[in-house]
Every structure is written in structure tokens, then in C-alpha cells.
């Protein structure tokens, strides 16, 4: 453990933000202000951390978050067909959330599943060797 109490508190910031993201699907401005106050650091320091990491979001994400890998091995295994299938099924573009608030569709960098390309994360679970049928089944299981 760090010896200074400030550092001890600071150490918990990332975990705190991750917990909030998990719970409420978003790191709101109010939450950032509260966290800054309780830790005795500036709002911009908290904001800096909240916006640095790709799994933290300052705009609201849905209950089900889909992250389609777009890095080179998946890209050349036609990850675009996965995005197309999801767009058709959900009626939204990457970066958007369905109007009913059930799904968010995001593109992401390498998720370390290149042996199962094209791959995606659905709520932190890995799904590889994706096909249209597989995608439709996965989405149905979420409803």
C-alpha cells in the first residue's frame, strides 16, 4: 500500500469509476464532482481518468453493451459483416444506443480473440467465429 493517505485514496479511483460504470452504465458529471470532492482531488483529474479508458463512458450506455473488434485480424475476417448484421438487427449505427435503451453498439480495438475472428464482447463475455445466425441468437438471449 502507498504510505501517503492521499495516494491510498487515489488508488481506488479507477475501481470506483468502474463500479459506477457497471452499476449505472455511465459516469455522470454529478458523479465526477462527487468523486473529486470525496477524494480531495480536482474535477478535471477525475474527468481525465473517466475519459482516458475505453470501457468508461461519460454518456449513457445501455444494459447490454456490444463491442465488435475492428482491429486488423478481425477486420480481414470481415468484421464489417458482423457490424452490418448488428446494425440490421438493432437498427442503430456503431456508437449508438437503441431507443428502448436495451443495446449499445460499439467498435473496439483488439480484444485478443484473433484465433476466433471475427469476434465481439457482449457484456464482457467473449463470442467468436461470429455468423449472422449466431448473432441473432445472442441478441435474442439478451431480451
Amino acid at each position: 500500500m502507498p504510505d501517503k493517505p492521499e495516494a491510498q485514496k487515489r488508488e481506488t479511483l479507477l475501481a470506483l469509476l468502474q463500479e459506477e460504470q457497471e452499476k449505472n452504465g455511465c459516469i455522470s458529471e454529478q458523479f465526477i464532482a462527487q468523486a473529486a470532492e470525496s477524494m480531495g482531488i480536482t474535477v478535471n483529474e477525475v474527468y481525465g481518468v473517466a475519459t482516458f479508458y475505453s470501457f468508461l463512458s461519460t454518456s449513457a450506455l445501455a444494459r447490454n453493451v456490444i463491442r465488435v473488434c475492428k482491429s486488423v485480424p478481425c477486420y480481414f475476417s470481415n468484421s464489417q459483416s458482423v457490424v452490418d448484421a448488428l446494425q440490421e438487427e438493432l437498427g442503430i449505427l456503431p456508437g449508438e444506443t437503441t431507443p428502448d435503451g436495451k443495446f449499445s453498439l460499439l467498435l473496439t480495438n483488439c480484444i485478443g480473440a484473433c484465433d476466433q475472428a471475427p469476434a465481439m464482447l457482449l457484456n464482457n463475455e467473449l463470442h467468436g467465429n461470429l455468423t449472422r445466425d449466431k448473432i441473432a441468437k445472442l441478441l435474442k438471449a439478451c431480451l
Partner: protein
Amino acid sequence: MPVQHIVLKNCQVIDPTDIHTYLELGGFKALEQALGMPPEAIIAEIKSSGLRGRGGAGFPCGVKWELALKSDGAEKYFICNADEGEVGTFKDRYILQHDPFTLIEAIAIAALAIGAKQAYIYLRQEYHYLLGGLLNAIEQVKSKGYLEHVDLRVRQGAGAYICGEETALIESIEGKRGEVRFKPPYPPSLGLWGKPTVVNNVETLMNIPAILLNGAQWFNKIGTEKSKGTKVFSVSGDVAKPGVCEFVMGSRIDEIVVDWAQASDIKMVQVGGATGGIIPCEMLATPLAFETILGSGAITVFSHRRDPLDFITHTVEFLAEESCGKCTPCREGSEVMLEILERLASGDGRQEDIQTLEELASVMSLTSLCGLGQATAVPVLDTLRYFRSEFNHRIQQSIFLRSLRSQSISEMRRSK
């Protein structure tokens, strides 16, 4: 050179949810041995084994440990880097999934050797689905009394490629943005919370128990002069059999991609992830070792259907997105490179584009703060070197297309 299993020897052999299957195969014998040795002796053994870091940089493992041991202060930290973000790399995922016990044993040995009472595994958020299995394994090891000298915790990343760089990883554990630090000082003298810290990759650590049990001499006999032991490769792309394999250091690329992964149509291979070098098909007999080309051991195969310009545009897009933004050459340079490549790919290339890319690559590699910016040049320059005619062809096409566009504009004006 042949397949040999040192790192992967227990994968798909033991049950990763049951420590007894690991104990039956001699698990924790190396730790028991280490507990009876002075730290200097453990480090001497690792040093003379010639083991080098498997994350990509290849720094001698024993030297790192020695630096931390000799650094002042009673408080030291050990970190296992499980932030495997390098494109095309998934070997650590495979190891964490199939053999968490060897890794935990190795961490226990490393902590003992450098005198760390606190150790962390930094697991990338993308591997969140491995967390349960890992925590379960740690609990089982604890219950057998093998973690009494060190408190081992798992910290989760939140999605950032750069956190695989050791100083950015340390910043992230401290609860900050994952921005790299100026070096020196290096982590073994000034790391986590300013204390001596060793950061080792998952695969590096997997070698430790075997080295202690079989002796440095045994390990030293495997591999090439400067690359001892084996290397785990993550093979993907245009191959029939993608996956994880372990070969003796110095094995040729074709032994892995053709013989093992059964690729039949190869235009080029990228070795070592997004910032890795490019090997064209004429050079597939190149041996894989620190002396030649290795990186993280990612091997991505591209068939003749693949366009090098498309490939490098996507690679630079990745690097530009994942740049931590702290230093100007990397933050701005990668963006400008991407702008040029996208323009070139969309049929609006200019005569001077290749030269500009080469100049940018040279500045970035000389002046960037860390490996990301420095090595962005590697795939860019390699693609330009081996597929230059394709780039030139695209530029000529662009010039032709532009002339057509201006022709049609003037025709439109005349017809008005």
C-alpha cells in the same frame, strides 16, 4: 526447430479449477525449493538461465529482479502484466485460461526473490471473463498455504492498449490516466508509489518454475545464442489453423505458419503485433528470435487478397487511437500519418506522400516517449519498403483520377 512445451506444458493437461491436478504434476515444488534459497541465489539462477522478457521488449528478467532487490527501501512491489493488448496476441489469454497455477507459483517466487510483500496481476478489461477463474485459483493457492509471504491481488484495467507499457500500467494501478512516464528512472528503482517495482509479462513468468526445478543450464541449452528457451506464438489471419503454439527460439516463420498453422497463400506476415515488422513471403525462412524479429510473438498472416495499404491504414488507425497523448510526436504524428494513408486509400494520393510518411516515421521513432510512438515507424517503413510499387501505383492512380475529375469539372463549366 521443434515444438517444445515449457510454458504450455500444463495447458489442457491440468484442470484449471482444481489445484490438486496441478500438485499431482509437481506443482509448487519450485516455490518450496525457492523458499529454502537466499534471494540472491534465486536471482543468480534466473540470470544465468538467460531468460528475457516475453512481452515484446526482451529485457533480461534476472537483471530486472536484481535491480529491484538491490534498490533501497523495504517496500517493494511485484506486478504481473496481463494487459495483453498487442494486436494479434492472445497467448496470455490462453495461459490464464488453462494454467493459472503455474503463473501464481511464479509470482510467489518472484515476490520472494525481490522482497515484495505485495503483488498484483493487472488484467485487461477485455479479459474480464477470465477474472473469476483467476480469483478462484488464487484462493485455492492461498488455502494450501503457498501465498503466506505475499499478498496477491488482481487489478482490472479499463480498456487501454498503452497500459501494457510498464510505466503506464503503474500509473493505472495508482488510479490515474494510463500515461507513460519519462525514463529513467526505471520501475526497478522507482515504480509503483515511487517504490522499487518489477513488472513481468505472463509468459516470462511461466518459465520461472521450470528454470528453478531443472536448473539454469538446462534452460540455457534451449534456443539460440541470445534467445534462450521457447516462445509462445499467437497465430492468426489467413491460416487454416489459427491458435497458440510453443516453439524453440530460433524456429523459422514457415515452420509455424506453413507447417503448424497450414497457411497456403502467403503474401506477407506481421510479427509482433501492431508495431511489429513485416516479412514478405520471400523471407519466410527468417528465424524468430530476439536477434531477428520476435516482439510479443503475434504472427498475423496475410494472403495475396490483402492490400498492404488497407492493412497499414488500419494499423496506424489503431496506433493513433491508442496513443496516450502525452508526447507530441506520437500523438500528432500518428494522426498525420493516418490522414495521409486514408487520403491515399481513398484515391487522392500525392506524389510527396511516401516521402512525408518516411520523414514522419523517422521523427516519431527518434523522439517519441515510449515504444508505441517509436515503433509506429516499423510497420509503416516495412510496408513501404516491400510493397513500394503498390503505393506508387496508388499515387499514379490518384493523379489520373484527379485529372479526370478536373476534366469533368471543366466540361461541366463549358456545357453551362
